[in-house]
């Protein structure tokens, strides 16, 4: 009886189901098929040409026992997590500041300036910061102004102690404008009568932000947070462009290691095993963040 009802429903909404076919086909072909294929390969010793050998969980054992992977995982979490947190609050501050600027030209100029880095590729942004931080770059130039002739230029990009901070800072600098745009979209939708009422009640600007603006954009902040943590372990371009051997211990992350194993060394089995674990870790982190943020309450 149940099946009959289901079939009836399918028949009734067949036009909608037909419309869904291309979408489903897209995800099957371009997302789930590669995903399943990748998982299958993670259990094989893959040859580029020839039959791959089934090796059980050997690739996973290699990944779990490899000190390089451990270090890369730690680096991914620190740099990825740090970038996310820094970028989140930086973006929020930009959005709040933008909301306070009354002059339209000044506001759009400021927003454009903060958003432009997001539009540039890491090749450009990475090259820019490498130059700024080089021994003959702008930062050393400023330091020389203060320290005079006794100054010895520093190669910041070759200093382990600065490496993670540089990656976090430059990552946040690039993406803060984007987060600000998302927060702004939410802020501009706030009913202005709320602010008027608050002003009549004697609320200061800080109080208006504290009790009106921020509470209203909390759902947006949650969405941004959940979407962003999905990318914590997936930062590749920045590390590819900005890493060098001197700082590799501190910043080489899982995706870069996967690239090295899979692309440079043709060790596809091990690379896909590591990639599968990145997927699992991403799912776990996302679920934890969802729980912590009570994400589901947004829709309740």
């Amino acid at each position, binding site marked *: 009886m149940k099946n009959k009802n289901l079939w009836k429903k399918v028949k009734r909404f067949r036009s909608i189901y037909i419309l869904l076919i291309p979408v489903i086909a897209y995800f099957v072909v371009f997302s*789930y098929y590669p995903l399943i294929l990748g998982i299958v390969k993670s259990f094989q010793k893959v040859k580029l040409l020839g039959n791959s050998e089934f090796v059980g969980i050997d690739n996973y054992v290699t990944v779990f026992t490899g000190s390089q992977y451990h270090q890369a995982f730690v680096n991914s979490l620190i740099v990825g997590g740090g970038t996310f947190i820094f970028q989140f609050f930086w973006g929020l501050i930009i959005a709040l500041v933008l909301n306070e600027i009354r002059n339209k030209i000044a506001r759009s100029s400021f927003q454009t300036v903060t958003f432009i880095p997001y539009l540039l590729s890491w090749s450009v942004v990475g090259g820019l910061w490498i130059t700024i931080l080089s*021994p*003959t770059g702008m930062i050393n130039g400023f330091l020389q102004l203060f320290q005079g002739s006794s100054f010895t230029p520093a190669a910041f990009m070759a200093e382990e102690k600065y490496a993670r901070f540089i990656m976090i800072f430059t990552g946040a600098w690039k993406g803060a404008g984007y987060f600000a745009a998302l927060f702004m979209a939410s802020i501009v939708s706030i009913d202005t009568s709320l602010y008027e009422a608050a002003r009549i009640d004697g609320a200061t600007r800080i109080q208006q932000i504290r009790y009106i603006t921020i509470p209203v954009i909390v759902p947006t902040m949650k969405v941004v947070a959940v979407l962003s943590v999905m990318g914590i372990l997936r930062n590749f371009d920045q590390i590819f462009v900005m890493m060098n051997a*001197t700082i590799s211990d501190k910043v080489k992350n899982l995706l870069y290691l996967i*690239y090295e194993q899979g692309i440079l*060394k043709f060790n596809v089995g091990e690379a896909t095993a590591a990639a599968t674990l990145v997927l699992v870790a991403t799912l776990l982190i*996302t679920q934890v963040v969802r729980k912590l943020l009570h994400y589901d309450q947004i829709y309740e």
Partner: protein
Amino acid sequence: MQKRWLAAGMAGVMAAGVLAGCGGSTSQATTSAAGTSSSSSTTKIAETTKGTAKASGSVKILSNVTGGKDDEEMALFEKALSEATGLDVTIDKPASDYDKVLMQKLGAGSDYDLVYVTASQYASLVDQGALLDITSYVNNSDILTNNIDPQEWKDITIDGKVYAGFNKKEVHRAVHINNTLLKKAGVDYKTVEPTFDGYYNMLKALKDSSDDPEFYPLDEVMSQAWDLQPFFAAVGAKEGVVIDDNGKKYAPYAEDSAAPVWEWFKKLYDDGLLDPGSFVDKTKDMRAKMEASSQKTAVTADWAAWVGLHNSNAQAAGLTTDDYEIVSLPGLQTPDGTYMLGKGAASLFAVPANAKNVDGAIKVLEYFATQEGGNLLSSGIEGYDYTGTEGNYTQTEIGKKHGNDHGAPFPIYKDYKPLFPYATGIEEAMSYAKYAAIDTIIPNESDFKEIVGKWGIRIIKGEVFTTEGLQSMRDELVERGVTER
């Protein structure tokens, strides 16, 4: 609950991209594997056809550097190569990310007859059984055996087998010196003693004669330990990995006997003679500092060909040799009184295991090893890059821009005679070829560079004691499987 599944599904879709980058096509790989053993140690062996006279049909090449510089010239290059070999040659030259494209194409079972590979990739692909053993073809080809130095074949022989032919003759690296600045410092480069002290004094003189606070006499690509061979020669240490008497791999740069060289670099750094940028510079940065328009450094170690490129670029900009001139030296002397220079690991055209036209592929390799093939690979296409008649050729403006490089500035043919004279300084730099040797081909070359560069920089900066740094370097090389002791 549905929302959670939806979110989990979304995360899965996003992460699929990570896996998609590493996955190939199982079915295609399986199909293409016909005739290939499943064992990693065995490879498909090509049936020799006693020469390539019967070669015909089409040949498909995946190239990184060889061919035309743009679509127009690539079409002309394909046409010229096709006419010369009697084959229908097509060349795919990805605009970027060659390593990635190579892996994806091979993984997808694309039927190329020749693929461009570096020595490190060559070793990895042989290990995977992805290449065809063409030893018998090579042995049966008069051109391949007679026109190429036998040492070149030895260098790419793995377990007695050859899986590729040559793209070009690899040249060596030497010490490059800005002679104009050196003259200003009152030093004749021919009188520089090939010792630590001799080179130190030269660098000190260069530094003292410059008013530019951003000028550092020596620049290297330290993060990749490139190229330090002319200096490590002082202790007789060979670059890369060497096999000891017990058959174990080790890295001479990481041995305690190499400590004096690392300490010498530290002294240079402490005394402001080694550019701090060396720790992060890539080769392009190093070359930019060396070029006429910059001159932020005066001594580097680079490919012999770059002596000529620096000089010809300066001459093209209207400078004379009094304004700017790069000369070369073979570096520090070994304890035996000779020199040691690094030679480029071979860049090769390998025959994939699924190649359809092996005869055609061999014919192309043969053509590359002739005078005519060398002309095409270096000077380019007659009528486009150069015009005239034999013995009286003139380069076109396009040809001049292409700098006698269409994949092989120095063709593999051992008796090759260039159509146009080499740029100023090349002859001298090339005269040091007798001191050069290639490194052992290893699949994890990138690990070697990273580890040696990282610990070397820590020693130079004084972050670790030399012995401690070298011990850590050795430990990490062993841990990552680069060396065995």
